[in-house]
């Protein structure tokens, strides 16, 4: 059985908070997945931070790019991360496949949906040693789950999906995938009303999760 969140969060007085402002991008390439998110933490007209790391590593070979209010982001990702760790501890180091992790997340979102929903939209990427391949999953706050080759969360999807549609090739390399991410970030900088100066880009492959670039250093506080 999973760890239970003993105090389940209830919807805030602001109702369902805006989930579309944060940018999350993801592309699956040959042997890995690239995830990119903006680094701003803002609400209404106020910007709190521009160096936030919104890509949380879940296990050694998987990570989740998250959008939503900071409280739910942190609560949900830490809850999932610790439950996945518990599974590994209980079962002598057996790791869950990316698909199993994504379905576990979906289940948690679905259970919470009718109690106190986690207001997070997520792109989950992971590498599986068993199949030597990587996969990308789209999860939204209503507990929808879809495996994708590439995708985006938030308003960014309106700007970037067409770019990915045009430029993505199945079996592309890491460099090619990163190039597409750059094009998407460029488009957001040019056309998106909300100012998102910094982006953090991470890659998940056979060597684990590593940061490729970060506009603002998350350690700066």
């Amino acid at each position: 059985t999973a760890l239970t969140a003993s105090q389940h969060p209830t919807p805030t007085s602001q109702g369902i908070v805006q989930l579309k402002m944060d940018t999350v991008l993801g592309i699956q390439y040959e042997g890995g997945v690239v995830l990119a998110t903006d680094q701003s933490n803002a609400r209404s007209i106020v910007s709190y931070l521009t160096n936030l790391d919104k890509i949380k590593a879940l296990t050694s070979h998987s990570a989740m790019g998250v959008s939503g209010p900071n409280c739910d982001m942190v609560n949900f990702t830490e809850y999932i991360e610790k439950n996945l760790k518990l599974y590994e501890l209980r079962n002598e180091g057996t790791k869950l496949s990316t698909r199993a992790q994504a379905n576990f997340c979906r289940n948690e979102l679905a259970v919470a949906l009718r109690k106190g929903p986690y207001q997070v939209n997520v792109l989950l990427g992971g590498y599986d040693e068993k199949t030597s391949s990587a996969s990308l999953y789209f999860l939204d706050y209503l507990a929808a789950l879809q495996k994708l080759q590439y995708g985006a969360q938030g308003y960014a999807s309106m700007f970037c999906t067409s770019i990915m549609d045009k430029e993505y090739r199945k079996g592309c390399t890491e460099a090619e995938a990163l190039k597409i991410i750059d094009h998407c970030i460029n488009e957001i900088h040019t056309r998106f009303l909300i100012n998102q100066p910094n982006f953090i880009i991470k890659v998940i492959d056979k060597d684990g999760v590593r940061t490729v670039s970060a506009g603002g250093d998350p350690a700066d506080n």
Partner: protein
Amino acid sequence: MARRYDSSTTTFSPEGRLHQVEYAIEAINNAGTCVGILAKDGIVMASERRITSGLLAPAKTSEKTYKLCNHSACNVAGLTADANILIDQARLRAGRYQYQYQEPIPVEQLVEHVCNYKQSYTQYGGLRPFGVAFLFAGYDDQFGFQLYQSDPSGNYSGWKATVIGANNQAGKSLLKNEYAPKKDKKDEGEETKEDEEDTTMPDIDGALRLAVKVLNKTMDGTAAAAEKMELFRMTYDPKTEKCIHHILTKAEAQAIIDAVEAESSSSGDS
């Protein structure tokens, strides 16, 4: 001496024993024998069918072999009513795991869940332990085919071949000699290398014949017949990625029994 400490499960004896658990294990030694054998390409579980009365209606389902999920099945020795509760537990656990992770449950996790449930009846509540021993057969993509044995204490271990139920010691000694004997072993005390592939592991048909041989020995006194034995085998089809559970028909079982007969008569065993 034991009488003072044996009526409650939650009390140790001065020698550090749980008598109720031991009595439960004893109860299984009167039950119909079950043999489990790991083969290269699957698992065989064979059990003794005890027909207690000629008036009994012919069985619609097996009282020994139960499917837990697509990739796992078990054989029961002991109190059938107790076993039904545990089998239900196992099926629920396998189903819930599949629901949560959209993947089949690793076999050992399923076994451990059932065993943890059994263990709680040896420690809390003042309820008696389950009088059931199981042979669990399963397949997962991490460890392939696996065979586990569990008893009322909640202990379990993995086996290449094992026997539970009546006359299990006789069965086990036969298996020790005949299951994958190491042909080149010179010294009994030599340590076998752990990563040495066990190339003498039988295939499914060899395992079925060996299982019949074991049942012949444990059921000795009664002539081997297809109605008295239930032969079950589990294999994996990589194309459909599903396991195939099959209880041999009377004709198939008879064929195995005949083959064993022929083998033993030709080798001069009495």
